[in-house]
């Protein structure tokens, strides 16, 4: 919002400068004052349902809701007066009247708006003598979302999301008074590719994700900022993992330019491909585990023989745009600059980029790689020609490539391509697979496989469809034996020069 007109408002007696027209809740948050709110969400329209954001405005005898207030000159607001505090407490008490308080079995516990505000603005003594109204629990809303009607505080965030953002209009509020419930018309399932966003924005545990249901309590989870690997949109996500050993879920991270507060369900489940159960956990030769050092040594030996006979044109490298810029840089430094390898093969990324378009008109795009544009740019800058997969299969069946380095990303989408390559290959070709995926190397029976890092463990930069470079800072590693591409190639390069200069020295 740079360059916009600024206005001066007084917040709790302190004069602050904020952009004109900014929402008061956001303006207060930017200046370190928290105004409690449930129904207000910066990405949605203002509803004024929850009455939690009541503030005192000078010159107005009644309390006003901050979410419906735009910052203008000489606005004088108090958020910490006796009147405001007791009003907020009473609002929260009203929200809790029919809330079941089943926190022990609620997945939201630990990140729940009711819990957080109860500790800050709770009344602690309920004045209700009536029984709580019982409503339906565990309502199935399709493939991704479970609804608990009792826990809902009717903030209508999810309703507004389906109306304004995903435009599916699945959800609505039905009935009146204390019988009012959130639901779908005729109990139909929710539709579309953006259902789980309603779970993210739900301030209580009314909407919970089926995928994450009962999986883990949120206070055990650590967060790591990353970028989604699902498509070229590059939605900012935070990876929720437990001690770096198990990824439990992805949540969108706010980015004004890319995904705002949202992400699609397809992208949300891409973590499964990176998770521990799908991963290659140690180096293998022909499916049998061997120490990483020995695997590198075996690779170095074969490469050295070929390069010593000046047959570097018999080395082929299969790359794909799942690499970060840092990985591509090390690939080019080691394989091109040091070893003089020129034969690079990839899928038809150029066509993929040209055909790239949003599939559902919102976030999800047809190009399934997170870094296609950056990938093409790196190879164009270095003037390295990328050959097609058909060229590779032809060369393999002719026998003109005897040493193939495959960088195979996690996930199933690459398997048809690698399968095609595997079928064309002669059995005596030396294949090295750098892959995080367990099943990827089954197609290459005698291959040497080295476990590399999966997308959500990587630290690096990717370029999305609009050319925006975004960095990922995961900083965790599931397996001790897996290494980043940079580390593996660096080790290869140092082993290679070691072996050349110091004859007879093997291993470490």
């Amino acid at each position, binding site marked *: 919002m740079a360059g916009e007109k600024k206005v001066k408002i007084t917040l709790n007696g302190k004069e602050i400068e904020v952009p004109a027209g900014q929402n008061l809740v956001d303006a207060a948050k930017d200046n370190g004052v928290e105004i409690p709110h449930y129904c207000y969400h910066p990405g949605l329209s203002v509803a004024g349902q929850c009455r939690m954001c009541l503030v005192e405005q000078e010159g107005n005898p009644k309390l006003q809701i901050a979410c419906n207030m735009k910052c203008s000159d000489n606005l004088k607001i108090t958020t910490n007066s006796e009147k405001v505090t007791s009003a907020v407490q009473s609002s929260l008490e009203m929200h809790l009247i029919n809330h079941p308080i089943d926190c022990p079995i609620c997945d939201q516990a630990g990140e729940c708006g009711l819990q957080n505000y109860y500790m800050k603005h709770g009344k602690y003594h309920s004045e209700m003598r009536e029984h709580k109204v019982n409503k339906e629990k565990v309502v199935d809303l399709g493939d991704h979302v479970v609804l608990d009607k009792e826990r809902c505080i009717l903030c209508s965030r999810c309703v507004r999301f389906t109306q304004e953002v995903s435009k599916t209009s699945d959800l609505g509020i039905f009935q009146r008074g204390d019988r009012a419930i959130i639901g779908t018309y005729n109990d139909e399932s929710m539709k579309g590719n953006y259902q789980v966003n309603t779970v993210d924005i739900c301030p209580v545990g009314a909407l919970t994700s089926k995928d994450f249901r009962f999986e883990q309590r949120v206070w*055990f989870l650590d967060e790591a900022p990353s970028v989604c690997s699902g498509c070229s949109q590059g939605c900012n996500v935070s990876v929720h993992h437990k001690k770096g050993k198990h990824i439990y879920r992805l949540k969108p991270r706010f980015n004004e330019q890319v995904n705002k507060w949202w992400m699609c369900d397809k992208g949300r489940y891409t973590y499964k491909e990176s998770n521990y159960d799908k991963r290659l956990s140690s180096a293998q030769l022909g499916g049998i585990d061997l120490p990483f050092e020995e695997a590198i040594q075996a690779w170095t030996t074969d490469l050295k023989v070929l390069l010593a006979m000046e047959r570097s044109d018999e080395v082929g490298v299969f790359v794909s745009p799942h690499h970060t810029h840092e990985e591509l840089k090390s690939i080019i430094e080691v394989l091109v600059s040091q070893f003089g390898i020129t034969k690079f093969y990839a899928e038809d990324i150029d066509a993929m980029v040209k055909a790239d378009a949003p599939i559902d008109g919102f976030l999800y795009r047809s190009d399934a790689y997170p870094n296609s544009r950056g990938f093409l740019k790196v190879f164009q800058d270095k003037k390295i020609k990328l050959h097609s997969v058909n060229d590779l299969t032809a060369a393999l069946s002719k026998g003109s490539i005897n040493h193939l380095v495959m960088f195979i990303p996690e996930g199933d989408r690459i398997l048809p391509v690698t399968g095609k390559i595997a079928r064309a290959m002669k059995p005596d070709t030396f294949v090295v697979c750098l892959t995080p995926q367990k099943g990827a190397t089954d197609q290459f029976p005698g291959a040497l496989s080295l476990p590399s890092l999966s997308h959500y463990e990587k630290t690096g930069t990717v370029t999305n469809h609009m050319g925006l470079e975004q960095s990922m800072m995961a900083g965790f590693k599931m397996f001790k034996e897996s290494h980043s591409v940079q580390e593996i190639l660096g080790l290869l390069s140092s082993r290679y020069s070691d072996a050349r200069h110091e004859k007879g020295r093997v291993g470490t």
Partner: protein
Amino acid sequence: MSNLESRSYLIGIVKGLITTGGHFFRNLLGFGNRPTIEYPEKRRNYSSRFMGVHILTKKKSGEIACTACMLCATNCPAECIHIVAAESPNPKVEKYPAVYEIDLLRCVFCGFCEEACPVDAIRMGRDYEVPELSERNFVVGIDYLMNRPSLQNKNISVFHEPERIAKMPEKKIA
């Protein structure tokens, strides 16, 4: 003189034998308080606050009372509790522990799990004799924690027997 006394070690030996013999005959003939007991037949009365092997309590129907909220695992300083939560087969119950395991060798018997539990589903029991041949047998599951014979099926959670909770005087709202 003192040199001679220290050199004649027999005096020291006799003194020692008198002490040992005194204990021996006192224990043999049963005078005074014996420091030892005949262990397997006789047992000491432990304090009522003694904390032994945990008990998982049940509902009256015999179902496990635990709701798998994992507060015990959160509170556990030894990280010895492993819970896998799942959808309960009983449609009236939402969440239950499909796996509840305590590694008794890791456990420090501090009782923090009991304090954390909101539904009286885990208690510190009174059993302290848990001999096993293999280390892995010390990782005990629901079957042992809830249904071992020494509990005599009396481990009903007070959360499900509200009549056993002492009535507190109702608090007046200020």
